[in-house]
């Protein structure tokens, strides 16, 4: 190919592996014993080992050890496992629905199920979640009914956002899960404002937000770090480094190959955590929550994981990365790792797992069947197109009222 890096004048990075290459990930030297706990009131600089290392609790054999072990009860671990497995089964079912034309579009959290679930479980119910499209699993933790999630994805009459947004752009205020917006990155700096409002009102509420490795190249990421540090916002700022932004490798998002340490020069204690390790994620998030709650300000976390599936239902990753690359990812599978851990401590069996899978499968299927009673993609009923005009403003001004009348004339003719 023309322009191999040796003979071109510009430095253009590349992904480590492209289709046809053998995938290898060699640098995975981290062990649960590597890192001690950090003092709650540590300075940004004092966190630098935690930012350049990797907090793990589940070791290579999936036993739990090290200072960051949150010592969760088996009940909590099983709960986490159930949420993650439910999300995977839910995603697989929705993807099948998309493939057979029953949803217009879909995005899975495949390989990243632990992220939102462990992190939300580590918070209090009054805490605000400000997610991207890759954290829908948080809603399970906050008790959202799958039927209502599916109704949104179909965009039928029961869609709580009234058919206005694409699938997976959930809003769930009851669970303090703030509306997902397509323009990537915007939520990150908005979350700082949410957190400051809580502080202003003197409430013990913490805000957690997430941004992708790719989107961390947007200005919003940097605004967030700066504002959060300056105003000591009670916010947990997570960069989910799943290594890909559609076809673009994280080599194009940071020149460092480490996202965590970018928080340090802003003055924010920063930690990198194994994003496929449920226990480590829980623990680091719990720690960040406590700091925030004590008035010690923001924490910046790189969640190191791997986007095991396609970016979305419109994407075919085998065109830009080895089709089996995810099998080589040394971070493994978050569900398998927690499951193996539970088995190793005698709290779980393969049979339990199969039974749980079956139960969840039928719950998801049941939810889908329930949801389509309120309308399917092919036949509706859909939300009324009157919803085009409502909630644009608190009260529609005259020009919208006129246009609304005109729309109805054409629609109802």
């Amino acid at each position: 190919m023309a322009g191999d890096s040796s003979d071109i004048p510009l430095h253009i990075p590349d992904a480590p592996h492209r289709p046809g290459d053998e995938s290898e990930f060699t640098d995975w030297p981290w062990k649960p014993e590597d890192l001690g706990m950090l003092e709650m009131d540590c300075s940004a600089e004092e966190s630098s080992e935690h930012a350049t290392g990797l907090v793990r609790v589940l070791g290579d054999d999936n036993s739990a050890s090290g200072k960051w072990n949150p010592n969760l009860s088996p009940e909590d671990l099983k709960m986490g496992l159930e949420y993650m497995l439910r999300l995977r089964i839910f995603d697989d079912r929705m993807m099948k629905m998309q493939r057979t034309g029953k949803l217009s579009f879909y995005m899975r959290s495949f390989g990243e199920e632990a992220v939102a679930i462990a992190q939300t479980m580590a918070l209090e119910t009054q805490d605000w979640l400000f997610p991207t499209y890759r954290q829908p699993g948080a809603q399970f933790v906050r008790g959202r009914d799958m039927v209502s999630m599916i109704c949104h994805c179909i965009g039928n009459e029961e869609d709580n956002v009234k058919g206005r947004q694409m699938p997976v752009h959930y809003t769930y205020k009851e669970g303090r899960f703030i509306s997902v917006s397509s323009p990537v990155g915007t939520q990150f700096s908005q979350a700082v404002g949410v957190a400051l409002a809580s502080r202003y009102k003197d409430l013990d509420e913490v805000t957690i937000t997430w941004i992708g490795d790719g989107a961390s190249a947007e200005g919003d990421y940097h605004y967030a770090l700066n504002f959060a540090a300056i105003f000591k916002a009670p916010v947990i700022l997570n960069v989910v480094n799943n290594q890909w932004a559609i076809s673009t490798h994280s080599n194009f998002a940071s020149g460092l190959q480490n996202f965590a340490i970018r928080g340090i020069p802003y003055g924010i204690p920063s930690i990198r955590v194994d994003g496929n390790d449920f226990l480590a994620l829980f623990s680091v998030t719990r720690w960040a929550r406590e700091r925030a709650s004590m008035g010690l300000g923001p924490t910046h976390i790189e969640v190191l994981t791997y986007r095991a599936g396609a970016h979305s239902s419109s994407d075919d990753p085998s065109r830009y990365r080895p089709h089996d690359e995810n099998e080589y990812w040394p971070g493994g599978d978050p569900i398998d790792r927690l499951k193996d851990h539970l088995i190793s401590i005698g709290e779980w069996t393969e049979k339990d797992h199969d039974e749980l899978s079956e139960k969840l499968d039928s719950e998801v299927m049941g939810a889908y069947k329930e949801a389509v009673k309120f309308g399917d993609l092919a036949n509706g009923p859909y939300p009324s197109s009157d919803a085009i005009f409502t909630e644009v403003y608190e009260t529609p001004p005259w020009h919208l009222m006129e246009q609304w009348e005109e729309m109805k004339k054409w629609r109802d003719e």
Partner: protein
Amino acid sequence: MPNMNMVESVNSALDTMLSNDEDVIIFGEDVGYFGGVFRTSDGLQEKFGKHRVFDSPLSEGGIAATAFGMGINGLRPVVEIQFADYIFPAYDQIVNEMAKVRHRSGGEFWCPVTIRTPAGGGIRGGHHHSQSPEAQFTHTPGLKVVYCSTPYNAKGLLISAIEDNDPVIFFEPKRCYRGPFYGDPHNVPTWGGHPEAEVPESHYSIPLGQARLALEGNDCTVIAWGAMVHVCEQAIKDSGISCDLIDLQTLVPWDKEAIEESISKTGRCVIVHEAPKTSGFGAEMVASIQERCFWSLESPIERVTGWDTPFPHTTEWDYMPGPDRIAAAIAKTQEN
């Protein structure tokens, strides 16, 4: 002559310009290795090298700013904003920087950047994959604004935009990438066999500032751009009224001769766009036409536009101007 769809003709324009001018450099989100999420730069990195066609960080502001810097230092960057809805992080760089640098530097610096971006609805993209923000740019002195509609004009206009020494915002109607769109979502034709899909492989250009007479008639002038050109074609057929259909192609600067000539013939006018009505470019057209052609007008000018609301998802067909609304507006201009 080869038959191309609009993805292929955009690709062909980029290919032509990369071959003709080594100062042309292409970058944007997913445009390099992968060739763009709409495939418009497919194969170009392999053909021209990683330093000519490459991926950028996910940062529209960064893309525009970097293009600005390259542009004032002698390169001719062609950058892609993945969806026009995502151009706003770059807005400051475009509006305050690119658009004004020639003027503010006393002519010492200028910025020959082309910003390509897929725009418009009809793909079930909801608020943030459907907008048509041309008016946000036509209101900015120093920018040229182009909106193509067919494979043939996409290539010819894109080549002119790249060769132009001023910054150009180049909108591509994504609903028309693979076929024209006649306003019926269930009718999904391809460009195969369409006369506007005959696209030369070699270099050609369509001057910026020149409209295209897509249909010729006597009784009404219908003005549109982007996907709406095809919807208007359908509406004119349905209305049975003899119309000039003017595909504006360049919004700034627009083709005053073509408009004046047509209005002086027909005396009646309908302007159609899918962007919201208030402060849409249609408003500019109406105002200019009444200033320039008032004494030729025989009836009030009609506008058919998207509503003044966000672009909906499931109900987009109740939002986008369809042939029925447009045909009724054409008929209304004939009333007195």
